[in-house]
């Protein structure tokens, strides 16, 4: 395989692996957070508004882990610096 196909295939595979593996942890964490919040709301319905607000903030912070992985895979697919480098090498020089 030449350089272009190696870089292209590795980028695509790693982009898929990044979002696959990276979304497992946040998914489990969000599930646990929601379970805890639902349990506490069922026990004390009075504090539902406080729990919900804190839950949303916590969920978004957990979710940002998955978002980091998403950003990395998007960079690998759409704005890959190695790919751009090879393409300019091949076409420009």
């Amino acid at each position: 395989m030449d350089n272009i196909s190696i870089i292209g295939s590795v980028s695509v595979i790693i982009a898929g692996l990044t979002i696959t593996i990276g979304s497992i942890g946040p998914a489990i964490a969000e599930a646990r957070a929601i379970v805890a919040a639902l349990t506490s709301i069922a026990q004390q319905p009075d504090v539902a508004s406080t729990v919900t607000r804190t839950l949303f903030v916590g969920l978004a912070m957990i979710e940002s882990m998955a978002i980091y992985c998403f950003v990395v895979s998007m960079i690998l697919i759409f704005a890959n610096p190695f790919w751009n480098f090879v393409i300019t090498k091949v076409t420009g020089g």
Partner: protein
Amino acid sequence: MRISSDDVIFFEYGFVKLNMTIVTTWVVMLILVIGSVCITRKLVVATKISRWQSILEMIVIIIKKQIEEVGLYKAETYIGFIGTLFLYLFTSNLLTILPIYEPPTSSLSTTAALAISVFFAVPVFNIMEHGLLNYLKSYVKPLFIMLPFHLISEFSRTVALAVRLFGNMMSGVIIVGILLTITPFIFPIVMTAFGLLTGTVQAYIFTILAATFIAAAAQESEKGFSKRNE
């Protein structure tokens, strides 16, 4: 496909570039400034106030309450910075319902600039409140060994703040773009509506985190401690 609105360039002269991010930022600034000026031009203290004034008062009171809940009890000092952050992010994320508009927060330059301003606001507010010596002391608490960790966390949380907002808004824009090529009929609208929810939550989180950073560097004052225990 492009991943940020920085690449749409309307006008270029030398090193001066006018891209879509700057234009949308100006639009949001214009809406906020003109709106506030028009509303606050005729403020009245009475039992019968105008509709817009009551909306503005509600917004200010809600933001003030949220700041106080984080632990900054002199909310008037901070509401200028934190409230402006929230209003700017909220407006720019909500305007995604307009057709050709792309939120300026979906570009890393905007979110990095906001995160850097938070990075500098933390020492400024704390030195104003507690003095230079007390602020520097907070870096070596509880032990001198903690100094490098405090410095690392200072930088890493700034990066995390910028990338979190950028990633969330950018993913919303890209998902709608991808769906438009696959199922262009109704499904993009659903994801746009979901993007509105994400945008609101992210604006809230950015603001609350900025307030938390300012409050965390400050030592818990005696008054605040007793107030919380009541």
